[in-house]
């Protein structure tokens, strides 16, 4: 990785993409990095595409990641991971949730959802670790844990320790119910394990 680390987090409105990126940014600041975070989120609250750019290092200038220079692509939704694959540098890593969110334009029969987004990204020559973060979150009892699962998945692919990232997540729930801390701790561990398992398989 160069002096600047570029992380692209993508998904759809309502999945917690922006919050997840914000937590990654806080962790980078905790490590003393300069940080910039920006979204391309046109009317994202309405189920649209969200892509959140995070850049950190000694000094960050432009907030946007230039296409072809992202170090890691964290895809919260399968087709969205595919949509943004071109942002990765040639040897970059795609961490993809295989969970799908089908938009109305597909239900209306106007477009097709890709048969296997992970396979297509892989066939295009990108290193992919994929896992079903949505099911992991549902098994833990709440789909909203999905973004903690995703953060767990990226935790071992960052230039700083997973533990600091975990602390940044848990800090958010400190003022809330203690059982939420425990649930998020488990979601984070499950995400880490899922990515590690996918790495072995890949």
């Amino acid at each position, binding site marked *: 990785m160069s002096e600047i680390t570029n992380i692209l987090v993508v998904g759809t409105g309502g999945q917690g993409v922006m919050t997840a990126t914000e937590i990654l940014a806080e962790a980078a600041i905790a490590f003393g990095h300069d940080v910039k975070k920006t979204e391309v989120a046109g009317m994202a609250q309405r189920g649209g595409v969200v892509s959140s750019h995070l850049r950190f290092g000694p000094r960050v*200038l432009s907030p946007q990641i230039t296409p072809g220079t992202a170090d890691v692509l964290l895809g919260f939704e399968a087709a969205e991971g595919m949509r943004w694959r071109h942002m990765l540098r040639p040897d970059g890593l795609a961490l993809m949730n295989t969970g799908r969110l089908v938009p109305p334009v597909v239900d209306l029969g106007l477009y097709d959802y890709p048969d296997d987004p992970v396979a297509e990204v892989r066939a*295009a020559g990108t290193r992919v670790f994929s896992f079903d973060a949505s099911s992991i979150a549902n098994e833990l009892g709440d789909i909203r844990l999905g973004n903690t699962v995703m953060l767990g998945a990226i935790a071992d692919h960052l230039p700083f320790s997973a533990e600091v990232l975990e602390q940044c997540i848990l800090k958010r729930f400190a003022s809330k119910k203690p059982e939420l801390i425990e649930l998020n701790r488990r979601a984070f561990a499950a995400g880490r394990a899922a990515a590690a398992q996918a790495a072995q398989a890949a």
Partner: protein
Amino acid sequence: MAAVTPVPAQSRLLMSGNEAVSRAVWESGVRVAAGYPGTPATEMLEVISTYPDIYAEWSVNEKVSLEVAFGAAMAGSRAFCAMKHVGMNVASDALMTMTLTGVAGGLVIAVADDVGLSSSQNEQDSRYWGRFAHVPVLEPSDSQEAYDFTLAAFELSERFQVPVILRLTTRICHVKGVVVVGQRSERPVAGFTKDVARWVMVPGAAGLRLPLMFERENRLRAEAEISRLNVVETGSDRRVGFVTSGPAYMHVRESFPDAPVLKLGFSCPLPFDLVRRFASECDQLVVVEEVEPLIEIEIKAQGIAVSGKDILPRSGELSPNVLKPAIARLLGEPLPDVVTVAPMKVFPRPPTMCVACPHLGVYYTLAQLRNVTISGDIGCYTLGFGQPWNALDACISMGASMGMALGLDKGRADSEKDRKIVAVIGDSTFLHMGMQGLLDIVYNRGNVTVLLLDNRAVGMTGGQNNPGTGRGIHGEEAPRIDFSRLVKALGVREERVHVVDPYELPTLFKTLRQESKIDEPSVIITNQPCVLVEDYRARKPFKVAEELCTGCGNCVDIGCPAIHVTRREKVIKPSGKEVELNFVRIESAACTGCGLCLQPCAPDAIVPVEMLAMPIHVVKKS
């Protein structure tokens, strides 16, 4: 939005540009802040409202917000006003004369340009207003500068007794970066000084203030020449010197680390001497600015040779991968190695209306109406132009649905004598700028049916309060407008005003068909809240009883994102006609039980989740 007030001075915070401006507004001792929601400016007033010691308000429109801020500044208080770029068009009438009076307390107007059109009807450059109104424009390039420049803007405003425009863009407002903050300093307020020659702008008085305005502009230009907001960064590679402002600076600095750069934070009035000195130190100049070639044209008018929009894109955001090839071409160098991987082909994912959104019932109904032109407005309901409804035919600016509808009526072709004209407008947009249009329809006897979608929120920007919600900016109780009485007061006849539940499709359709046939203005007010605001009460979810679904697909036409097609099947009807059947499921975890999809469901296959496979008719709601 967390209140950030307890954060001590010198803290390093991750802040968006909007949050950074808000912090600086608070620290500057501002007493009055006003605004109208609009992406990307909305969060400024939202954050300011969490600080103590500031009167903050959602105004009914941007012009009123600027007048409120100006009034406070006349009274000697520091005042702040925030709006999106198109809001400045609305507020400009007030701006163009307050530049003559000037201000007593500092007045800063933050205008957020949506460069790249992330959520706007146009792309325009608000820096023009600085030239037009002869007021200074400051252009921060990141969150820290958004904070620093806001503090500087108040100092400048008071020193020169002039409103100052703080020009932001989406890429400032919504980018988060590290900001070191300070503390609030309270300022004594002098109070209002009666001075009719200054505050009452009649022709004679205004004429006397014109020369003062131009003299002030000269002094401001002299200030820009020495301002610490304008910085020359020397560079070893002097083949191209860059003159740049706002977020474009970051792209220039990243792309050309060795080039000399003149960074204009105080870009209007333009410091000509500074530019001239900088030009003499470089082989050639390139101006890099978003959106219009304003700095470029002014430099050219000084007889200084520059490149700019001749080699750079005319619209949209700039970035290193735009700048690098453009400069390489200018220098006749081989193009840099830009990785150009084509994006993979994936379906589009346009914004949709929410699950159970009350607008779904409105657009499902409008889609059934024949021989109609639908004049639309700005809000979530603009999405009605899209699939599956295709039920909105025009949209330009806030409140325009009213005037456009009247014009469509009066300008109708002879061949369209029987065409129905319907206008669709939301509650907040109606109060912003639609009321006057409706009055015009009534006064001039227009034949228009108005659908006033009262969902008790400024939905598109995140559900902010307005005079229709009965709550103020802090969520506190506030006087609530009665839309029914309001439109009657504007002259719509009693029997032509209907309040309808948009989830009751038969009533909505009947009322709409009846009113659109009557040759006079009528208003149909829908009365269900936005699903994203606290007034909304979710009901028990539904599911599809698979064995009952006949694949008629009627429910799909509602356009609810919780309804998914599981299987398509082509069948030949007895008539010989081929039809496609769409078998569906409801994502029950997302469903909030509005009941819209039950109503067109032919086989009653949509049932409550807990009542397994028992078909029922649930249409009535409490």
